């Protein structure tokens, strides 16, 4: 096993590797940020369903899990991947979320113009996802495992060929908010394994 500081080659040995103090601080800081954003993401979801009306938010409400281009939920095998790969997937998802959240925000500005707190949370979520994604990429770079090459920007609305009704738009927004919560929570868990003294 390499004894190089900051290596992610052997995730089982992470806790025993003596990380540089600044790197350790960075990881702790990013983990704290992810923890905070997980709470915010939960609040966003609650605020969102409240403004869409029932059955959104009712127990047992199970809309179709619509596919969202460029982003999907963490796979069941995510936790079994090496830490570096998990963090790369986290960073990629966090980079894909902001334009999706922006689109939901614009749609909700039309559907719920008198819901300033919801609109503010959606705008904040896009910024927070960018910030957390950048922080995760910085951690990866410091650990010698940089994130993958950035993907090309998705097509803009000018080339959109899909027009959706209001109900599908509400469902899609719920899906995006759900994905945001899933990925910040997943990132918090993955970073937790790097925090010295955290779970292996």
């Amino acid at each position: 096993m390499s004894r190089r500081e900051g290596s992610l080659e052997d995730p089982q040995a992470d806790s025993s590797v003596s990380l540089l103090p600044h790197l350790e601080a960075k990881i702790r800081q990013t983990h704290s940020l992810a923890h905070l954003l997980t709470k915010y993401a939960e609040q966003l979801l609650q605020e969102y369903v409240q403004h869409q009306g029932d059955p959104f938010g009712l127990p047992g409400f199970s809309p179709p899990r619509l596919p969202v281009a460029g982003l999907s939920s963490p796979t069941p095998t995510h936790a079994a991947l090496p830490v570096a790969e998990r963090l790369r997937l986290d960073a990629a998802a966090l980079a894909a979320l902001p334009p999706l959240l922006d689109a939901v925000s614009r749609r909700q500005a039309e559907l719920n113009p008198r819901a300033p707190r919801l609109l503010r949370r959606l705008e904040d979520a896009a910024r927070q996802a960018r910030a957390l994604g950048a922080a995760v990429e910085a951690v990866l770079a410091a650990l010698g495992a940089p994130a993958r090459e950035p993907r090309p920007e998705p097509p803009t609305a000018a080339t959109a060929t899909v027009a959706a009704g209001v109900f599908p738009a509400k469902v899609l927004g719920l899906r995006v908010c759900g994905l945001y919560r899933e990925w910040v929570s997943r990132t918090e868990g993955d970073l937790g394994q790097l925090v010295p003294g955290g779970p292996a």
Partner: protein
Amino acid sequence: MPAGRPGPAAQCARRPPPPLPLLLFCVLGAPRAGSGSHTAVISPQDPTLLIGSSLQATCSVHGDPPGATAEGLYWTLNGRRLPPELSRVLNASTLALALANLNGSRQQSGDNLVCHARDGSILAGSCLYVGLPPEKPFNISCWSKNMKDLTCRWTPGAHGETFLHTNYSLKYKLRWYGQDNTCEEYHTVGPHSCHIPKDLALFTPYEIWVEATNRLGSARSDVLTLDILDVVTTDPPPDVHVSRVGGLEDQLSVRWVSPPALKDFLFQAKYQIRYRVEDSVDWKVVDDVSNQTSCRLAGLKPGTVYFVQVRCNPFGIYGSKKAGIWSEWSHPTAASTPRSAERAGPGGGACEPRSGEPSSGPVRRELKQFLGWLKKHAYCSNLSFRLYDQWRAWMQKSHKTRNQHRTRGSCPRADGARREVLPDKL
């Protein structure tokens, strides 16, 4: 929402939603290849209807394998299952719904009408917008802070309850020329208000009105015509100080500064003072304070803390004939009257003059006249209100009952003048 009695025919005003970005691909019900799942489409999509109207909707199922059946489908509205008697199977793949006498939408994002498969899964949805067209906004009132801006407030028609998102737009233009302008800063002093921060003309009237618009129509208020100079308000008077008047137990002196923002515009000011005892919510108002920056409150309780506020009304700006608009009250300033064993009478609410100031009460008015006469006929140059107040303080301190006594000061006896000064008669 639905009811048994049929209502008027539905008015469906559809507004096509903007397309979502391609990256947000999905149309609810898009079939997944090889999944064998059914999808559906509800018609109409996102209709707008009047309260009390009816709706006929259909849910058409299609999917893989073909020949999907409408049997077993059901409807929910805002999460509640609709009675089966409201539905009927039109054909093998279509379930119809009839809703009558619709109530106003429960949320502004629209009521959620959903078509479910037998197992409860969601096949399709449509959002209903049920409400009323806006009524005419009214009661527009506007004011200008120091002639620099204009803020207007209005009341929405029908108290604003249209059950639909209603947009209000404040418009204004110069009365005899110019184009329509739209106010841009909304909700500055409440939900139905707008602020115009700059570029306003003086000495020429404006026409102002409010337009209300929602999915079902629009309405326009009456036009308000005003000149900015006639609706001016200003800041509350700064530097309000409240202090004791020597040892006088029933008086406090209030001083303030004229609001500086309008000092160059040659206006007269009216002031109002209000004051209350510390542990009371009842304010007493003194409202005959014209164009002066000090006042004395009299008839107060001794040994009591009072809170005092002052506000200003500018009028006569540039020759305007109209009174202005009262400013906000100044921040409360507190002071206490001196303590005494004797209790004064109830607060009078009058504004007593300070030394040398014109009298505003009957006793002091007469005293002023007498002092003036004395000065003229008895050559008593050192007589003044200040001397009178000192005498009062001395009287209270000594706790003596008022008796007639001779005073002989530096006042030479004038012909016809009374030889004796009778303080108790003053």
